[in-house]
């Protein structure tokens, strides 16, 4: 009994921490519709700043209460100001850009902030002091429970109440709620939208900073916090329903309690199998998210979003003769590369080709079909693991494995897509993420089959393909065909039907288009192509590890597509080439390469808010002919 109570309290403390960071994200998303990737970085910044501020205010025997709580407050304010500045200097300039484009800018911010923290605070973990007066524990039913955790629970609850009052009882809060329901309408009511957005950003960021700062007595400040927090925060926001603060609180509570009890229960014997529940904590929040979204497509307390901004999406046209001959020239040049350039160019080009196909397959979903996927790496990884396992476990010849592996990815896409196409917008995207994480955790933990966290090594091409240039031609052929096929499909009746579904589901229904089925097939097509990319990747590296299904690769895919521009099929190809090449070059030449890469991305975002190819089209193309 006492253990249940204590684990429940542990869960409450965890929920409080989770809620603080998720509430800010939920507010920001609700009002501005920005998928703010940098929210985890703001949280990280919060804990670092608090560490320094408290340290500065400390005497020889640690901080006094003023020093500690003052430091926490300073940190929240400083992070709030950082968020407001980011909004004013960066995001405000790109609200007109296509949906999700702001994600790219915030990704740049993540990279910059990470290196900034490394530069200021160094690489070592920094464990801050305990809160003065709250160092110890209290006995609850004979068990020791940290006093500070009780305070944390109380702070979480107070922040929830304060936010609720702010949103329900003030004019500003009313505006925020109205904007969450219908952004255009608030603009039409003559409210200064700019400052509303800035204020929401400042408040949301300050909450992230506060959430980070309050963790000082519980965990060290460290550089990996940003990414580990952001995924959790998004899950909480989506499970709760985007824009809903009580929803975020409820979701945080559910997830934290489930985690806590998974750890508390430990091993469980079910039908003769021993299930290790603590191992489940690796992925349990994503399982919760998948279940919630399948049952309630807008989260627990979310409502169907109001009218979305109408964005006349991409319009693919057949190539004109001049462009066609230019493309042929590029192909000829690519075919000649092994003769004119050194071995590494070929290696790098294989990577570029692989990611170009990967990005093109993601674009197929995001652009024509209008379905953003945050978990596209799943299909890449399934293809890669499919290839490796077909060779290693099933004993297939390498060539057969390479060509069969995409079907493994197709099967995964068919399964995941079947659920995803019943959702829309960011909820759909988050469900793809949930499935990708579940697939990742299976691969990560199934040691006997997938090699677990170490992955599978010794996946090399057949001897006749062993030379770099032979394999390069395979990659060039397969990736080229894949990209060409995807583009060809976009121009076909099926591709048009997908676009039709993106433009107007209502009209689709009225002219007899089975949209859900079309979208499901789109998942399978995109998954197959991503799987092909993954299989080519596996054999080009000789090994494969769970990274190939992980969030960072999914994010890279999004970055590539957005960098190039979602409007045309050539956008992701250019984006993939640029991003891969930049990463390779920048990483080689500077210590703070992440900050530099982030800075370049931010600069590109500001210069080309339609993506690079989108910009070229807008600048040089006649709208009718391109």
């Amino acid at each position: 009994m006492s253990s249940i109570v204590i684990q429940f309290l542990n869960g409450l403390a965890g929920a409080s921490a989770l809620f603080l960071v998720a509430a800010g994200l939920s507010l920001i998303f609700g009002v501005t519709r920005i998928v703010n990737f940098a929210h985890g970085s703001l949280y990280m910044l919060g804990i670092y700043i608090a560490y320094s501020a408290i340290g500065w205010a400390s005497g020889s025997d640690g901080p006094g209460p003023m020093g500690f709580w003052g430091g926490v407050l300073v940190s929240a304010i400083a992070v709030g100001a950082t968020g407001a500045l980011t909004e004013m200097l960066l995001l405000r300039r790109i609200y007109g850009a296509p949906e999700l484009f702001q994600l790219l800018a915030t990704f740049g911010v993540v990279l910059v902030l990470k290196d900034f923290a490394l530069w200021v605070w160094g690489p070592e973990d920094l464990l801050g002091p305990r809160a003065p007066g709250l160092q110890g524990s209290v006995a609850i039913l004979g068990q020791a429970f940290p006093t500070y955790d009780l305070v944390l629970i109380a702070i979480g609850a107070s922040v929830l109440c304060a936010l609720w009052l702010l949103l329900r009882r003030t004019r500003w809060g009313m505006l925020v709620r109205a904007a969450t329901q219908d952004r255009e309408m608030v603009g039409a009511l003559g409210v200064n939208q700019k400052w509303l957005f800035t204020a929401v950003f400042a408040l949301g960021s300050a909450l992230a900073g506060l959430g980070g700062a309050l963790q000082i007595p519980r965990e060290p400040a460290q550089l990996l916090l940003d990414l580990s927090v952001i995924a959790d925060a998004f899950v909480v926001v989506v499970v709760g329903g985007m824009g809903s603060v009580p929803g975020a609180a409820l979701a945080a509570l559910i997830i934290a309690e489930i985690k806590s009890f998974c750890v508390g229960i430990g091993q469980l014997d079910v039908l003769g199998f021993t299930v290790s529940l603590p191992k489940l904590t690796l992925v349990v929040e994503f399982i919760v998210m998948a279940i919630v979204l399948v049952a309630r497509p807008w989260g627990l307390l979310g409502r169907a979003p109001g009218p979305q901004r109408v964005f006349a999406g991409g319009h693919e046209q057949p190539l004109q003769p001049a462009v066609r001959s230019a493309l042929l020239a590029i192909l000829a040049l690519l075919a000649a590369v092994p003769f004119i350039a050194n071995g590494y160019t070929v290696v790098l080009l294989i990577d570029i080709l692989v990611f170009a196909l990967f990005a093109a397959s993601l674009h197929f979903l995001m652009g024509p079909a209008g379905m953003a996927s945050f978990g596209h790496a799943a299909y890449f990884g399934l293809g890669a693991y499919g290839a490796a396992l077909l060779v290693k476990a099933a004993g297939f010849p390498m060539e057969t494995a390479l060509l069969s592996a995409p079907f493994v990815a197709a099967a995964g896409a068919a399964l995941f897509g079947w659920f995803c196409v019943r959702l829309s917008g960011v909820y759909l995207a988050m469900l793809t993420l949930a499935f990708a994480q579940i697939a990742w955790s299976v691969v990560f933990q199934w040691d006997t089959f997938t090699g677990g966290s170490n992955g599978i090594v010794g996946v090399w091409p057949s001897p006749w393909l062993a030379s770099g240039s032979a394999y390069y031609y395979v990659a060039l052929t397969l990736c080229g065909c894949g990209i060409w096929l995807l583009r060809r499909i976009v121009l076909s009746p099926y591709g048009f039907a997908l676009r039709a579904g993106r433009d107007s589901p209502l009209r689709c229904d009225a002219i007899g288009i089975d949209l859900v089925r079309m979208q499901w097939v789109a998942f399978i097509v995109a998954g197959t192509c991503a799987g092909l990319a993954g299989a080519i990747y596996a054999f080009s590296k000789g090994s494969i590890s769970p990274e190939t299904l992980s969030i960072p690769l999914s994010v890279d895919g999004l970055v590539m597509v957005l960098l190039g521009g979602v409007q045309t099929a050539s956008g992701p190809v250019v984006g993939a080439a640029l991003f891969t090449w930049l990463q390779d070059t920048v990483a080689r030449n500077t210590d703070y390469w992440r900050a530099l890469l982030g800075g370049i991305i931010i600069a590109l975002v500001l210069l080309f808010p339609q993506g690079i190819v989108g910009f070229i089209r807008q600048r040089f193309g006649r709208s009718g002919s391109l």
Partner: protein
Amino acid sequence: MNILSVSALSKSFGGVQAVRAVSFNVEAGQLLAIIGPNGAGKSTCFNMVNGQIRPDSGSVTIGGVEVSGKTPREIWRLGVGRTFQITATFASMTVRENVQMALLSYHHRLASWWPRVMNLYREEADELLRRLGMSEQAHRQCALLAYGDLKRVELAMALANRPRLLLMDEPTAGMAAAERIELMALTAEIVRERRIAALFTEHDMDVVFAHADRIVVLNRGLLIAEGSPEDVRVDAQVRDVYLGSRR
């Protein structure tokens, strides 16, 4: 010959009877208008015919096939074309491509992966657009079109299904007076020439009385009058409803 038969159709929302036992028929080559004051049940009635709302009881048959419970998609397959009160077209596509999409659906070619849309049913699409006076606009993107033109695109898409039945929700809403008359005249002409049964709701009484062959008047979910424009015009109950109660 009756194309559309509606009999004893009822629907209530949370205790409010929106439509009560309404029955009417539409014949081929005939335009039937549903009118009534706000809240009379026009839209509910209309949406039960097109499959967006499922009736509580009663039946709707199109060409003798029962359609209540069918989805809009299945209803299109029975030879029904429709237009929306607020136009719904594919904004990123050109006018011609919009019509081509409807034609592709009619010809069951939507699942083909290989041929290019630009070459498919192009003449047929252009022929429809010519009939609706949209030839000039065929290459323009729908996102850039004037509202009246979008209504014509919708009509062209509906006609691409070679419909037996045409359903139009407020076909002239949001248009200038001259344009309304012109569009409705054209619609009526096509409906008669192709022997299509047409059902539409409409606010504008000028349009209704100028072009409808028959009119159904609803009030508070009940059918209170049905007949030719002349009959309805003189119906006492209708005058009551529209001109206010004298009781």
